[in-house]
């Protein structure tokens, strides 16, 4: 890297393509090539700056003797290269928005995912504030734009704990009905209207995978049904049991999508992965899906 500290700066043509300096912005080469179109406009700027520069140097002979303490031009070649390079790289990163992002189950107040992703500064406060440790940071597999934005993970526990259910209750009892995550979010990425009602708020919809649900595979299992009844009450439960064609006529759980609010109690209690009735160890038989999927 050139050092501007040297006393005599060799004369250089500022309009030349700064190829050698691309290595300054390591790891973003593809972005540079993608956004090549922008370089044309920037080269015109370079020509202007070059002219400015030469004027500055032309003036400088007298300037130095007049004790001129200002640098010879307001923008140095290195500044220009770094500025253009980084803008191009960041625009390249930003254009991942065209790849689209995975829709995730978001904490309360984050259901408008475009707004959430646009405003979240990835501080992690919501994650820390959640009493049930339900909020996690999304990973790169969820999409570049989603990285480190919050989502709800209900399966981060051992299933079957009906007495210690983990689900989002909007902090109704623990924080006077104001979800902690919304309260602590510094950029209002998670934000709720003043008149929001935890009774009617919906985070997502539970979806039952009949291929791995134990009940559908021929054994009696009622964990999700129990959990939903416990959380929502018998009359407002979203999971019902229908006598069905499961093995020996065992009853089968059915989710009513119009009633389900996506609280996640069913997913957190599902024992399918423990009973090795699963394709991978992370995905349970009943999972909460976001609304717009």
């Amino acid at each position: 890297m050139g050092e501007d500290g040297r006393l005599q700066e060799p004369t250089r043509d500022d309009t030349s393509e700064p190829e050698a300096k691309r290595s300054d912005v390591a790891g973003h080469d593809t972005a540079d090539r993608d956004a090549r179109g922008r370089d044309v406009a920037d080269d015109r700027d370079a020509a202007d700056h070059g002219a400015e520069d030469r004027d500055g140097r032309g003036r400088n002979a007298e300037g130095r003797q007049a004790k001129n303490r200002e640098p010879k031009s307001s923008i140095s070649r290195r500044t220009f290269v770094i500025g253009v390079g980084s803008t191009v790289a960041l625009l390249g990163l930003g254009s991942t928005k065209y790849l689209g992002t995975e829709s995730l189950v978001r904490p309360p107040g984050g259901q408008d995912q475009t707004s959430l992703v646009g405003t979240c500064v990835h501080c992690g406060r919501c994650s820390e504030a959640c009493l049930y440790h339900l909020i996690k940071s999304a990973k790169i597999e969820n999409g570049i734009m989603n990285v480190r934005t919050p989502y709800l993970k209900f399966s981060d526990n051992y299933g079957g704990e009906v007495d210690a259910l983990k689900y989002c209750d909007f902090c109704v009892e623990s924080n006077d009905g104001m979800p902690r995550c919304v309260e602590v979010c510094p950029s209002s990425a998670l934000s709720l209207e003043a008149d929001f009602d935890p009774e009617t708020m919906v985070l997502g919809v539970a979806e039952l995978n009949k291929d791995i649900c134990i009940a559908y595979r021929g054994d009696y299992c009622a964990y999700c049904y129990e959990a939903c009844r416990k959380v929502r009450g018998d009359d407002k439960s979203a999971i019902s049991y229908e006598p069905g064609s499961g093995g020996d006529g065992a009853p089968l759980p059915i989710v009513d999508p119009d009633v389900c609010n996506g609280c996640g109690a069913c997913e957190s209690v599902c024992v399918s992965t423990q009973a090795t009735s699963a394709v991978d160890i992370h995905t349970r038989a009943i999972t909460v899906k976001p609304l717009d999927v």
Partner: protein
Amino acid sequence: MKKTTMRHIVIAAVYCAFALFFIVGVSTGSYCGIGWSEISLLCPLGALLAMISNLTLIPQAVLSVAVAAVLVFVLGRAFCGWVCPVSLWNTITRFFTSKKKRDEHHAELSARDQAIAKAEIAKALQDRDSEVAGSSAADAKPTASAERTDYDAALAESAAGIATEATAAETLPQPTARKFDSRHAVLGGALIASLFAGFPVFCLVCPVGLSFAVIVLLVNLFGAGDVTWSLILAPVVLILEVVFLRKWCSRFCPISGLISLVSRASKTGMPQIDNEKCLESSTGVACSKCATICTYDVNLRHPEYGELPLHDCARCGDCIDTCPAHAISLKLVNAKPEAFKVLASAKEVLRESEKPVQTK
């Protein structure tokens, strides 16, 4: 304890505190957003990017920027020197550089700064020479002139030596400290990118954010068995930035670019040179060790020749620890900076070429 040691301890302590609170569940946040209960402050850059992404004014974000501005007005760029983890990573990276390379690099910087110092000293002497000549012509006291003769002779000799080649003003190096530098260009790029993309793009690669993200990823790996490509990607991007963009703090960081927009108004807590003690001003010997050692590329003795201007001082204390004459101290409120000059009381003025150059 040296200030350098102190500040590294503070940086490490803040980092560990954030990590610990995250693990234990005390909701204090991270560098990106810190707070207690419903009171929180954003990183000012994050605040601007969040607002630009959605083209909305967010009250807490506006407040965060205002609070940050006040803090910078009072503390200048102290965040960089005392809180930002990238400072710590840079120090660790230097630790991995071979001693030979470190010494070479130091010698290179030292040579640059001493050349600047010599030129500036020569010019200052010439300025004073013309002052002295002017005043002694008007001075009608014969007694004082005898004492001054030797001294004047030495002055004239050194000034003449330089004058034979060119006037001192013409041999002055080009000032390099600019009002705006590449960091501001990156800042502009980050703002433009967020406007275009509709989300805070820079936050994805911000090394400060990534430093905390590594903690989160590790905690989730060991606490919940979360295996993800992010676990490799986050530290790799961080390491690439620290190793390849090794002048991150001086040339790339948009946060420091943002800070420097306000820190130019800050006149508090900055190191100040006591001209009576400083080797350059009191004896005319080129030294500039404060400039060579400065982690943030400020030249305290000859500010216009630093890579960054004086207001980018991060209060790191390297110059204070390193000055051989202990001439530098932190001042609560700094006096208006004056042009460098060699004091009239300097007894020894040595020809620069004769004085052995002492490197670290």
